[in-house]
């Protein structure tokens, strides 16, 4: 039996109907806000492609991104996605280890030069290369080497996209993001801690079907998933507009589902699809559980003060410049008025008539 050449053939062999593929394509186009006329093209694209070789590199990570991906609840996706792709290297999922695994990676790179996709989770330590190595190779070196001839690098999770928690002040490992290592290969950032599984699979499906990178925002994230802020799509928004805010997690307002802005919700400055796609197959999402958005898909969210500090509350202790400024200002004022007084006396003494008293401030 020959190896199936295309995904279409492979699916047919597995008994997955064209109708099912179309359903899946329709779902992807809808979550990616593509015109529904693209559904057919997408299904066709998927059916016609060869299985795509994917190399998954894990750097300083916690495996939650992988967890998230494998918890994807979309229609048969956890099967599908692995069927679409040939996951040639993934430290957490593959059975092989050590040199054997390394060989698999090198072989995949060789066989699929310029056509494979690299997925990265975790941040890359530059402080001391020894912090994170695989088979004795530093993450940065492996990434550089692997990315060079890749079709695209997909950075998943906020560690890979922005440096993530490892980068949190004082950044002991010198962690950096993928975009600071990879220079000449297109990067797709799918941020989140962890990212929404559908954002990962949807993006991959798009790349697979069209051989193209989807439209990205200024931070390199697919607009389809990161185009709107949480706040823009939040079902609690009417309460925000009315000025109805929960003041604590167990007050009347919290029970009535009022806006969580005062409890530190970062929804207004967070771009992600939680409010629309939700989590766990659409079961719920953070704000729905009664907790404000942490802003986990935004750069540096870990360093912006407490999650429970209201958004507009400054991260700086602004009372200090106010008080210090006031003290300095009074001192400056005292000096300035002395200088002005001296000047007034000097000029006044030169004015005529000399002995006339000055008539300032008569009452």
């Amino acid at each position, binding site marked *: 039996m020959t190896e199936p050449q295309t995904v279409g053939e492979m699916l047919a062999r597995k008994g997955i109907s064209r109708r099912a593929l179309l359903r899946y394509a329709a779902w992807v186009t809808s979550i990616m806000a593509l015109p529904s006329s693209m559904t057919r093209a997408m299904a066709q694209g998927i059916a016609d492609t060869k299985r795509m070789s994917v190399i998954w590199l894990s750097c300083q990570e916690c495996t939650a991104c992988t967890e998230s991906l494998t918890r994807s609840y979309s229609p048969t996706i956890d099967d599908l996605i692995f069927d679409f792709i040939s996951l040639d290297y993934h430290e957490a999922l593959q059975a092989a280890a050590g040199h054997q695994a390394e060989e698999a990676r090198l072989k995949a790179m060789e066989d699929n030069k310029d056509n494979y996709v690299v997925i990265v989770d975790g941040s890359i330590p530059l402080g001391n290369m020894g912090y994170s190595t695989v088979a004795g190779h530093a993450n940065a070196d492996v990434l550089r080497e692997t990315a060079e001839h890749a079709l695209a690098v997909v950075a998943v999770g906020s560690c890979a996209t922005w440096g993530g928690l490892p980068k949190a002040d004082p950044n002991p490992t010198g962690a950096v993001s993928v975009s600071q290592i990879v220079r000449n290969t297109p990067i797709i950032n799918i941020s989140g801690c962890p990212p929404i599984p559908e954002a990962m699979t949807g993006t991959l499906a798009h790349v697979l079907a069209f051989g193209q990178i989807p439209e990205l925002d200024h931070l390199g994230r697919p607009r389809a998933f990161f185009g709107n*802020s949480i*706040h*823009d799509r939040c079902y609690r928004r009417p309460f*925000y*507009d*009315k*000025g109805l*805010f929960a003041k604590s997690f167990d007050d009347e307002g919290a029970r009535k589902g009022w806006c969580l*802005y*005062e409890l530190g919700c970062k929804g*207004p*400055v967070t771009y992600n699809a939680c409010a629309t796609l939700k989590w766990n197959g659409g079961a719920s999402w953070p704000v729905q559980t009664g907790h404000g958005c942490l802003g986990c898909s*935004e*750069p*540096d969210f870990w360093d912006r003060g407490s999650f429970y*500090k*209201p*958004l*507009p*509350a*400054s*991260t*700086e*202790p*602004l*009372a200090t*410049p*106010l*008080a*210090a*400024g*006031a*003290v*300095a*200002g*009074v001192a*400056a*004022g*005292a000096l*300035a*008025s*002395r200088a*002005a*007084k001296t000047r007034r006396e000097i000029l006044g003494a030169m004015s005529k008539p000399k002995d006339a008293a*000055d*008539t*300032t*401030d*008569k*009452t």
Partner: protein
Amino acid sequence: MELLDFARGPALTIAFAIFAIGVAWRLSSLLFTPRPHRRAEAREGTPSDAKAFVRGVFSRFIPHKTYRDVVFANHLNAYVFHIGLFIVVFLYRPHILFIEGFTGLSWPALPNTLVYGVGLVTVVSLGVALARRMTNPVQKILTTFDDYFSWALTVLPVLTGLLVVNGIGARYETLLALHILSVCALLIWLPFGKLMHTFLFVLSRGVTSVRLSRRGATF
């Protein structure tokens, strides 16, 4: 987010410091300026200086009825935008949370959508003030760069604030950064131009009131 971080962090800190230095400097240099003369003996039965000062500060909020016709429209408009600014700055939840962040003080707010409405009215009212300044011969002859600049810096935070909440023109955090930067610009300029009237009106009304009250005259 970087611009926003800059605006929230260094920009606001520097603006607050300059604002405080400037205001304290200008007020204290005035207060330290000597009044070289004794005052003439006050008329018997006139209020104490302190009382006259305070009374003067408040009495000038409303023009005397003799002048009500001539300044009515102008003052009304000025009241609209001043009260508008007050509401927008101090009775809007995000702003209160901002103030609470460094003072620990909090108070009730108005519904956000109402504040947006007030913001709109404020912008229109400031527009009217500008139009008047550019057409009224008396104001024209008095107007300097300071007047236009101060006007612009007053209107900008309101405008950008409205853009932020309506997401017009750019992303929320970009607009918010511009909003905060415009506030920084306002704070930095306030002590150095006519906007200092925010504080000077107290002194200015006070001293004249004392002077005239000692004579038994109406301020």
